[in-house]
């Protein structure tokens, strides 16, 4: 773990391994872009095949979706504050904002689960039509990512409390923040093309 000449950089970039982990994660984000891109491609092709089943106008509740969007946007902002606190070497602030971020994430997730329950009750299931299959796949994949992110974020809090802000925990927190921001980016497109596009 040579420190080399990166000491003027933020903590997470100071070790070679830290730099590699961050770069590796960015490359993984490239793969994630394609992953979600493919889901959007499927939705683009199948999104108007209702075969007599529910249409977006029948099931989408725009007020709830806007709240979901605001929750996720805000959590993306607070995870930015997490990194700011970390670079100030402020462990307390870091953990506080991390918890806020995760709470917002949980709020988003609860609303999404309620939304799905509402759809199923309205007779819109995965098996109903190609439109709904592709919609559930896209939303479900995003929701699964958020769920995984919440578990990851909690694990990270324990590690930070145990070890403090070190090269390794800083790298991990940085990578987590990248992941969380990315989920927000994906959601922006989901919101725009699935919900607004479906209702427009």
């Amino acid at each position, binding site marked *: *773990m040579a420190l080399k000449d990166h000491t003027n950089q933020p903590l997470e970039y100071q070790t*070679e391994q830290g*730099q*590699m*982990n961050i*770069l*590796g994660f960015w*490359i*993984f984000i*490239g*793969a*994630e872009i*394609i*992953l979600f891109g*493919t*889901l959007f*491609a*499927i939705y683009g*092709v*199948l999104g108007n*095949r*209702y*075969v007599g089943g529910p249409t977006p106008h029948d099931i989408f509740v725009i007020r709830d979706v806007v709240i979901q969007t605001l929750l996720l946007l805000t959590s993306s902002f607070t995870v930015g504050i997490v990194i700011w606190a970390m670079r100030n070497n402020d462990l307390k602030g870091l953990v506080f904002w991390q918890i806020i971020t995760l709470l917002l994430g949980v709020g988003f997730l609860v609303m999404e689960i309620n939304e799905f329950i509402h759809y199923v009750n309205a007779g819109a299931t*995965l*098996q*109903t*039509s*190609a*439109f709904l*299959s*592709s919609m*559930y*796949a896209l939303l479900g994949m995003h929701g699964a990512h958020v769920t995984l992110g919440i*578990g*990851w974020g909690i*694990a*990270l809090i*324990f*590690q930070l409390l145990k*070890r403090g802000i070190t090269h*390794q925990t800083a790298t*991990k927190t940085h990578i987590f923040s990248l992941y969380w921001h990315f989920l927000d980016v994906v959601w922006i497109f989901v919101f725009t093309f699935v919900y607004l596009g479906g209702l427009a």
Partner: protein
Amino acid sequence: MVDIKWDRILVTGEPLITMAMILIILTVLGVVVALTYFKKWKWLWKEWLTTVDHKRIGIMYIILGLVMFVRGGIDALMMRAQTAVPENTFLSAQHYAEVFTTHGTIMILFMAMPVLIGFMNIIMPLQIGARDVAFPHMNAISFWLTTAGALLFNISFIVGGSPDAGWTMYFPLAGKEFSPGVGNTYYFVAVQIAGFGTLMSAINFTVTIMKMRTKGMTLFKMPMFTWTTLISSLIMIIAFPVFTIALLAATLDRVYGAHFFTLSGGGLDMLWNNLFWMWAHPEVYIVILPAFGMISEVVAAFSKKRLFGYHSMVWAIIIISVLSMIVWVHHFYTMGVGPVVNSIFSITTLLIAVPTGIKMFNWLFTMRKGRIQFTVPMLWALAFIPTFLIGGVTGVMLGMAAADFHYHNTMFLIAHFHYTLVGGVVYAVFAAFTYWWPKVFGFKLGEKLGKWHFWLFNIGFNVTFFPMFFAGLDGAIRRAYTYSADAPYAPLMFISFIGTLFIAAGMIAFVMNVIWSIKNREKLACGHDPWDARTLEWATASPVPEYNFAILPEVNEIDAYWYAKKRNESFALKKEDIKPIHLPNNSGQPFIMGVIMFFVGLFFVFELHVPAFIASGAFFFMMLLRSFTSYDEGRYVNPEEVAKKETSWREVS
């Protein structure tokens, strides 16, 4: 949804499958007995199953690939035997469908990919002067996930039934309506698991190459095999997520009754073709580019010349990688989407011939006026060029949309892609295998049997596949389990079968060569640089010590090791220059993750949802465990130990 006959879970009644079953049981028992008798269990666990050393992981990848090569090869022999004579009854239609499905899937995903990733693992870090890959732990996870996928796919033919809708798994045939058994679910799940491993490897190699090159090695001073590893990895990162989603959607269709590709409910079967080929076309470039890299290394080393047109070679592979992403429709011109779409994709397809042609000429010009040594690897490289050329030219023929309506799904196509994938990838792999064997084990493979292998395989390959071009033009369609006695191509099919016997004989020579060479390893022992080669992997001991390089080499030109030798530079090592070398610790976690993933897959295949979710939970627990135990700082190899090992090939003072 569940329609599984639990009382008939083991496939019975097919004598061939029963024989295979007995053989597998005997082999497993034999291995277990041998390991116990020689008290090797601990050795297996400590030295191999828990290793994070890129060289050992690479060796395991190649072993996996070769075992799968045998499996896929037997499938191939059975197919040719069935179609050797008209109206043959050696295999039933169903069995034939299973055999061509597993042959294709295994050869691409579980033979070509593991073997190539194996070589990337072993050679690439050495070529850039690194001590390991960027993420050694993740590397082991990649391997064990790939193995879990391969194993899951392979047990299908005895537990539950093989997939039988072709390696392309076209819907609606692959859907539950027309294939109610578990066979095709095996495909979607097993390939998915292996795909995760591949994606992780690709990220690992990319970061390794971008961040861990030794001092002075700029991107345009990297050896060609490293370049192709990089570009191939970048294609994997883009192509595999498409497949992940396609497989997921197909699994949802089959297991949970969704409507992505099924015809009812508004699904669109051609969407599967579209997504499949968006992955599968880049996939063939993922496997061919590293093969190009291997050929480039071998041709340069045995012509004793620097690779001709290095820069054009690099740009050619970069352009190929981009073009490979925008040609997918040429696999289904006959879908009938209209002349405009077909023309667009026809043009992009034909464009690929340009950079590929550049590479061909570069290899030829590298040999021009070189002092060519006709070693076994060079023979393979020499045979590669005309064989791959035939594959490429017939590819251009197929790429013309209008003409393709005639060739589509005939044996012409089969001949074409075997000329590219066997004549391209497999020839290159055999070249690489003989070329780098001494690097990995410290002794050469026998020349005599090696030449037998080469000639038998090469003749056999051409006898098998060249007649197929004509059979295809005469109307022989692919995947037909039999044909009538009046078919004009019947004699061609018989010639083709004779050819496979030569290939089989060649493979027997190959296996004999490996066994014979291991037995005679003292006689065949060679120095660290037996071929008088050019790149950095030869600038350390053979077999390579676990730390790769005692002191990281510095370079300032292409083929730096070659020019250092020409300038008579001293490779003597001063003891005081050796510093403690940091290495990662072994870990059992990747292996356990592989085992868990195998069961996750198995449970999903049989639609046992509760066990599947429990097993998935166990997998997530392992990920969490890794997160909490990732603070392990590794270990250090002390300088005395290094000095002792280095004396095997150079002076240490």
